[in-house]
């Protein structure tokens, strides 16, 4: 019933199951002894000499700074003025350059295939004709018939994609889901890094940490490149639902970093197959809209008629090529949980390549065998609703009560096709600062893949951490926090005695950055 019981059961689960893979200390096979992973050796050495109170005071300093800068998010349903901080953990997640090159290549491959899939599904639908994806996908509520036959610049649909990765062992990463609509969280990747550089400058001198700060520049370059009109200096804007949206800080942050206008629906209007913004000097044409509003709210004339967030007539201009939207309308059909299952097949179909990153094994409950298996194993599976998001409409079997399981069973039986099921993954843990000291907490990883003339990603990611002991849910809406993610050039980790100046470590870091981007 209560949180406490769920936590207890998860703890039991943790103890009864095999140990979780820890990013810092891996368990040596068939032994109780733990070994610090190479990538962490130097950091662990540094960490063990830092007294708890010192780390705690760094944490508090970070909190104070975040509050002062206003890096907050609003919580739906709470009264006006309730701005919260996403908890920030001062212990970073470390990833070696080698691991990173595999992950980034896999993420890029995936996004390339997903963009090709989106183009295909809104044009000739070859993948359906080839019998790889069932035509029932066209009935998915995220499929937008309005987009059929519409050509988007460079055939890019998902200009920004967040790929959620989890790890279960030294060599095993899984893609948990693709976020292709309006993925958020990149501002935390950037702000967490700034914070770490401020709190622990000595660590940045000591390690070659690949920089991530150029993300907004890459994004801006891509957005300018997809302007439909042939003008030299396209006007790019960021369309936000406004200051009361939970991700408003991020919208403001990105607009500022890119030097573009942060607009809201009422700032824009449509005239003569073009979009304009209302300025103090009269109307100004807009060429590219980086929109952070969902499809449903973007144009009240076509989608949700009650939306006051969107721009009436926008879709018609978009379809006629008068403006570019990023991400494109209709990307939701590619990141839906019902489509997720087919991504490995898409990669083979469109790219003729073997997938570099694996999907989590998934049961499709529309299939009778999978349904029967799932119903018999609800207590050990995670059941997710398709077309849902954010950790709300799901059942975590091992953490649920009998009553919850039975209630969910009824929902599944009444509409099996609305659900998929996956084994409960043993998400890796990462040392995290908690009240009692440093303890392992479960983490995931969301790198952001940018598609423009090339498909790239900066060497870093949003690392979300479930701060409650034993919890596997990392969403910020469910009490998750964030960590900085360091992509390290292992061989270049300098010994303490060798550290003399920041100039020495800088070139290596830049090399990692270039390498990671060259992967595409």
């Amino acid at each position, binding site marked *: 019933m209560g949180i406490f019981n769920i936590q207890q059961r998860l703890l039991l689960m943790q103890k009864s199951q095999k140990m979780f893979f820890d990013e810092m200390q891996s368990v040596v096979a068939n032994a109780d002894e733990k070994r610090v992973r190479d990538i962490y050796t130097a950091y662990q050495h540094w960490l063990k000499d830092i007294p708890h109170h010192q780390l705690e005071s760094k944490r508090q300093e970070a909190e104070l700074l975040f*509050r*002062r*800068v*206003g890096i907050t998010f609003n919580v739906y349903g709470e009264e006006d003025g309730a701005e919260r901080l996403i908890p920030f953990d001062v212990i970073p997640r470390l990833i070696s350059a080698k691991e990173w090159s595999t992950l980034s290549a896999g993420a890029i491959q995936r996004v390339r295939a997903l963009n090709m899939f989106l183009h295909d599904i809104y044009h000739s639908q070859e993948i359906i004709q080839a019998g790889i994806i069932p035509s029932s996908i066209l009935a998915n509520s995220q499929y937008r018939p309005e987009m059929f036959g519409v050509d988007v610049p460079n055939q890019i649909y998902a200009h920004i994609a967040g790929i959620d990765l989890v790890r279960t062992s030294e060599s095993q990463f899984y893609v948990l889901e693709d976020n292709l609509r309006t993925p958020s969280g990149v501002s935390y990747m950037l702000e967490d890094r700034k914070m770490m550089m401020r709190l622990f400058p000595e660590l940045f001198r000591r390690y070659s940490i690949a920089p991530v700060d150029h993300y907004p520049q890459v994004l801006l370059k891509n957005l300018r490149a997809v302007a439909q009109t042939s003008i030299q200096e396209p006007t790019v804007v960021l369309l936000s639902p*406004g*200051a009361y949206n939970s991700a408003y800080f991020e919208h*403001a942050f990105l*607009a*500022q970093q890119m030097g573009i*206008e*942060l*607009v*809201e629906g*009422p*700032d824009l*209007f449509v005239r003569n197959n073009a979009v*304009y*913004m*209302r*300025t*103090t*000097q*009269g*109307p100004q044409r807009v060429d590219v809209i980086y929109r952070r509003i969902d499809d449903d709210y973007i144009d009240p004339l076509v989608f949700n008629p009650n939306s006051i967030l969107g721009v009436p007539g926008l879709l018609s201009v978009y379809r006629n090529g008068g403006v570019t939207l990023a991400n494109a309308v209709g990307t939701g059909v590619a990141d839906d949980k019902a489509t997720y299952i087919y991504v490995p097949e898409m990669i083979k179909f469109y790219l003729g390549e073997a997938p570099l990153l694996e999907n989590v094994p998934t049961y499709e409950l529309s299939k009778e065998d999978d349904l029967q298996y799932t119903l018999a194993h609800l207590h050990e599976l995670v059941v997710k609703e398709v077309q849902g998001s954010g950790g709300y409409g799901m059942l975590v079997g091992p953490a649920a009560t009998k009553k919850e399981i039975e209630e969910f069973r009824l929902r599944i039986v009444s509409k099996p096709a609305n659900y998929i099921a996956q084994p409960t993954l043993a998400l890796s843990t990462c040392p995290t600062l908690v009240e009692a000291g440093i303890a392992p907490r479960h983490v995931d990883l969301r790198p952001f893949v940018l598609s423009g003339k090339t498909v790239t990603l900066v060497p870093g990611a949003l690392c979300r951490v479930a701060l409650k002991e034993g919890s596997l849910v990392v969403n910020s809406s469910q009490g998750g926090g964030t960590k900085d993610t360091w992509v390290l050039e292992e061989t270049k980790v300098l010994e303490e005695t060798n550290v003399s100046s920041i100039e020495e470590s800088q070139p290596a870091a830049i090399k990692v950055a270039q390498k990671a981007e060259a992967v595409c």
Partner: protein
Amino acid sequence: MLSRTADHLYWMARYIERAENMARVLEVTYSMSLVPNAAQSEAALWLPALEISGNIDDYESEYDTVNAADVIHYLAMDADNPSSIYNALRNARENARAVRVAMTSETWENINALWLEFDQFNGQDLAKNGLREFCDWVKARSHLFRGVCFGTMLRDDAFSFVRLGTFIERADNTARLLDVKYHLLLPEQEEVGGAVDYYEWSAVLRSVSAFQAYQKIFSDTIVPWRVAELLVLRRDMPRSLHACLDEISAILEQLSGSRHTECRRLSGELHAKLRYGKMQDIFQRGLHEFLSDFIDSNNILGAEIQRAFLSINAS
């Protein structure tokens, strides 16, 4: 720039300025109440503060009597009073938050810090103690706000709209302060320019940081008509009406460019009255009439600025 952005910047600056002026009114009223031979009753002393804020009716619906504790609470902290310092600062911060992109990060952090710092005064009974510190704090934050804008913002339209908000609000406040004080301080039988209580007039001057300027310019005893001259016609006095209109008309010239806007014409007209007006003529017609007219014109000017640049429907 976006009309909505300009609107938020303009109102952010107006609200900060409003908070500062309200703090000045509270401070001067409070210091008058400390003068031992003040003959006035507590109610008579605090009523002008309410008049300046223009909210007497609202106050009376909420409180029974006019007394120091209630007026201070009402003007400084009352969340139900739309023009309390609390609400002015809150609105300033909300406006800033809505367009944090349009200002430098220093400017935004400054306003955000202001709002976070406000917490220290929450729930404090300012009438009992701490009013001085509170007013000093509000003024200091306002100075800091202008300083950070001046010192960090690109000299583009965004900066112009911030300045515009500051001076439209300041002109309104100085006119109100002078009008109410002049009206109340001048005994009926007293001739304009006659002797009135030194303490009270010096308090008025101090409330607009003009005491030292007065001494320096006139090096004479404080007489009301000179106070009025200083606050209306002296262009070198940064809170005077003339100084405000110097700024406003220059900004509107620049913002309007080749456009013919009513706000530009109106500000030019107001500016000319202050630039070429004579104090004798103003007194002959009546200072009160002059100031009421000014306050009305300034309001119309505000509405015209809204219409020309800030309204979301201007397309």
